[in-house]
């Protein structure tokens, strides 16, 4: 019965969370219809049914699983694993294999110490591999079969967590622990521990002049004999802060976890910031003019024009879009600009591809679309990856200027304050002009003060001559 696995929906996705099943367990599903909503580290995506059949859900809503782990089976309803499965050959395997495993005295090599490895398992009569009633072979590792056979466990009652749903040692041990209450999951059964006492680096003397190896089996401390211990989880569980006052606890969403990690990474970037006031009087006038020419969904905001100016300047300045990879600088092949968009419970940075080659109306339309779909959680992961530089704008909230955090591994970010009337000295007279402050944060390993200053000056020049943005 075909298994549906946790899909890899982005380059960086390692695990995903099942948010919602659109179908219930046992429902008939048709290939291509929306089946399940998966939350990745970057986005929430709807995944379609890969084939027709009856849905047997493995991963429940809220479950977080590694990429490649089975989340459901879709197939002939009769083949659902919970009904009508039988195994064959288990008693035979129990009689033969188990006795061999527990045999204390190895038969070969003759000179072996008591800690020598056990003899090879019997070659006959081999137990037939377990099958389900419908003939589907159960995927289980040889070791898992061996342990299950010894404990009389029916493999059909176990859910595999290995690659492709394969039943592995851990799964059988978990079942043993659950069934008997004798051993907690993850520990070794005594019988299997006995097999762990093999030799490590035998130390012997003499040179064998003949081809076949003849190796004295003197165990060394390296060999250990100690049964293996379960591996701790990759990420340590957070220790609750008992010294903090009590409060309501809310787990971070996957998006918030990603932001948390990325911002912590960004903290390692040695950055500096440059500020520059830009006269936006002409820019505002141009926006008013464009209102006459363009339909509403293509009319640029100040931010759209900043994106255009940054992209034009970046095209001229590969040094300002280079990113650091070890001891090398890498220049991206296209000028893709990230645009910070506030979403409920976080922040995303969708990307305007080839922004240097797109006109202002197209940029304006794309940014609107990206922001709308981003807030609705409809962006694909590839629309959130690979920007060369990012632009962040808090001007609409009345912020005059701010220092944005670099979206590593990008080398710089432009923070846009509000465009507002301010008194300015022009030719010895105080006049009222529209002014906006841009703050450029730069990775100092990639670019230096003077380079960044000329880059910012070029952005200012373009914004103060808005006709240049329209070519």
């Amino acid at each position, binding site marked *: 019965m075909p298994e549906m696995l946790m899909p890899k929906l982005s380059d960086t996705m390692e695990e995903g969370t099942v948010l919602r099943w659109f179908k219930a367990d046992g429902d008939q599903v048709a290939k291509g219809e929306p089946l399940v909503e998966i939350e990745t580290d970057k986005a929430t995506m709807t995944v379609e049914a890969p084939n027709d059949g009856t849905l047997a859900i493995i991963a429940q809503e809220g479950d977080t699983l590694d990429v490649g782990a089975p989340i459901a089976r879709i197939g002939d309803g009769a083949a659902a694993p919970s009904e009508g499965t039988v195994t064959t050959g288990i008693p035979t395997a129990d009689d033969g294999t188990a006795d061999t495993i527990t045999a204390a005295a190895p038969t070969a090599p003759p000179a072996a110490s008591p800690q020598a490895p056990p003899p090879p398992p019997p070659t006959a009569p081999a137990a037939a591999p377990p099958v389900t009633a419908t003939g589907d072979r159960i995927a289980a590792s040889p070791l898992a079969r061996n342990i299950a056979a010894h404990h009389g466990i029916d493999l059909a009652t176990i859910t595999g967590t290995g690659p492709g749903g394969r039943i*592995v040692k851990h799964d059988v041990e978990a079942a043993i622990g659950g069934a008997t209450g004798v051993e907690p999951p993850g520990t070794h059964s005594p019988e299997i521990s006995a097999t762990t006492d093999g030799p490590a680096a035998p130390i012997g003397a003499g040179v064998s002049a003949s081809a076949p190896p003849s190796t004295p089996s003197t165990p060394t401390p390296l060999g250990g004999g100690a049964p293996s211990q379960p591996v701790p989880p990759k990420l340590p569980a957070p220790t609750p802060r008992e010294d903090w006052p009590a409060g309501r606890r809310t787990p971070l969403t996957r998006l918030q976890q990603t932001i948390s990690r990325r911002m912590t990474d960004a903290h390692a970037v040695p950055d500096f910031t440059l500020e520059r006031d830009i006269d936006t009087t002409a820019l505002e006038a141009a926006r008013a003019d464009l209102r006459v020419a363009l339909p509403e969904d293509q009319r640029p905001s100040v931010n759209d024009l900043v994106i255009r100016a940054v992209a034009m300047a970046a095209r001229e300045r590969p040094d300002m879009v280079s990113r650091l990879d070890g001891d090398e600088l890498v220049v991206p092949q296209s000028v893709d600009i990230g645009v910070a968009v506030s979403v409920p419970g976080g922040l995303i940075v969708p990307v305007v591809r080839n922004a240097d080659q797109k006109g202002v109306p197209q940029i304006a339309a794309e940014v609107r679309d990206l922001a709308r779909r981003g807030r609705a959680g409809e962006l694909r992961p590839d629309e959130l990856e690979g920007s060369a530089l990012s632009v962040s704008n808090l001007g609409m909230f009345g912020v005059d200027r701010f220092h944005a955090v670099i979206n590593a591994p990008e080398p710089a970010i432009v923070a846009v304050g509000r465009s507002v009337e301010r008194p300015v000295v022009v030719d010895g007279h105080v006049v009222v002009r529209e002014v906006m402050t841009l703050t450029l944060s730069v990775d100092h390993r990639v670019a230096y003060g003077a380079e960044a200053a000329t880059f910012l000056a070029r952005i200012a020049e373009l914004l103060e001559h808005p006709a240049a943005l329209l070519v």
Partner: protein
Amino acid sequence: MSTDAAKPVAYRDALNQALREELARDPDVFLLGEDIAGFDGAFKVTRGLLAEFGPERVVDTPITEAGFTGMAIGAAMAGLRPVVEIMTVNFVILAMDQIVNNAAKIHYMFGGQASVPIVIRMPGGGGHQLSSQHSQTLDAWFAHVPGLKVVCPSTPEDAKGLLKTAIRDDDPVIFIENEGLYGKKGPVGGPDDLIPFGQAVVRRPGTHCTVIAHSRMVWVALQAAEELASQGIEVEVIDPRTFRPLDLDTLAGSVRRTGHAVIVDEGWPEYGISAGLATHLYEACFDWLDAPIGRVNCADVPMPYAKNLEQAALPQPADVVAAVLANIGRGVA
């Protein structure tokens, strides 16, 4: 161990020590190869030996791999103990007829009346932007041939101890060094410390997965093991050291303990060292395996010249980490 053991010695100098000690110990031992006398060897392994032992025992040859290898095989049949240096493994291809058809066969075809106590030393391996023809790892070519012994030392101690064993062995020994290891420093044994063939060594103990690596790949595997340890995964790194004879007991014993095996081999993946070892382990450990055996090999391509492509083609620690994580899967979480 002598008192020298504490002093770190470079891999090339460990080999030099072995050659010097064996030349001094046994008057039947002599060296021959291209540029090994007047020029001290392309990798300076034979430095100073011409001055010490003279041109009759440290012999420069023309660029004629088949010719001088055949000459050495004849000398070995006549009772001498020649140590041939082939400048790199890439040039031994010219001498394969002599090695496969003569060195490996004569003892067998003459009913044991003659033997060929020859050592053929050469470095293999890639990673130095020497392109397709000069970056090869051909260990498997020799390990394929019955009648040869195949030795691949990964440390200065093994380089010295195994070379001394090779020179004293009565069978033809293919001794494959690695260009990337010549500067590697470590302790070495004294004049009487021989390392026997057919004994693998545990380079790092561990419980979750067995990682088998030889020659330079031992160091790649150990780097990967460090990274994995930071994730709570302890791999057991085992160096077989010799492929003929092979210490299958130690390899299989470890795999039976861990239930998982990943083989790291700088050679190509098809029909090579990793493929042969995997077959041995499947046969010896099938009922102990919790996952298919993983392999990390050189990409199945002629070695690219470009540095980035070359690095991508060669096994890197990150490749080993990924292979181990994939092998262990979710079974240990």
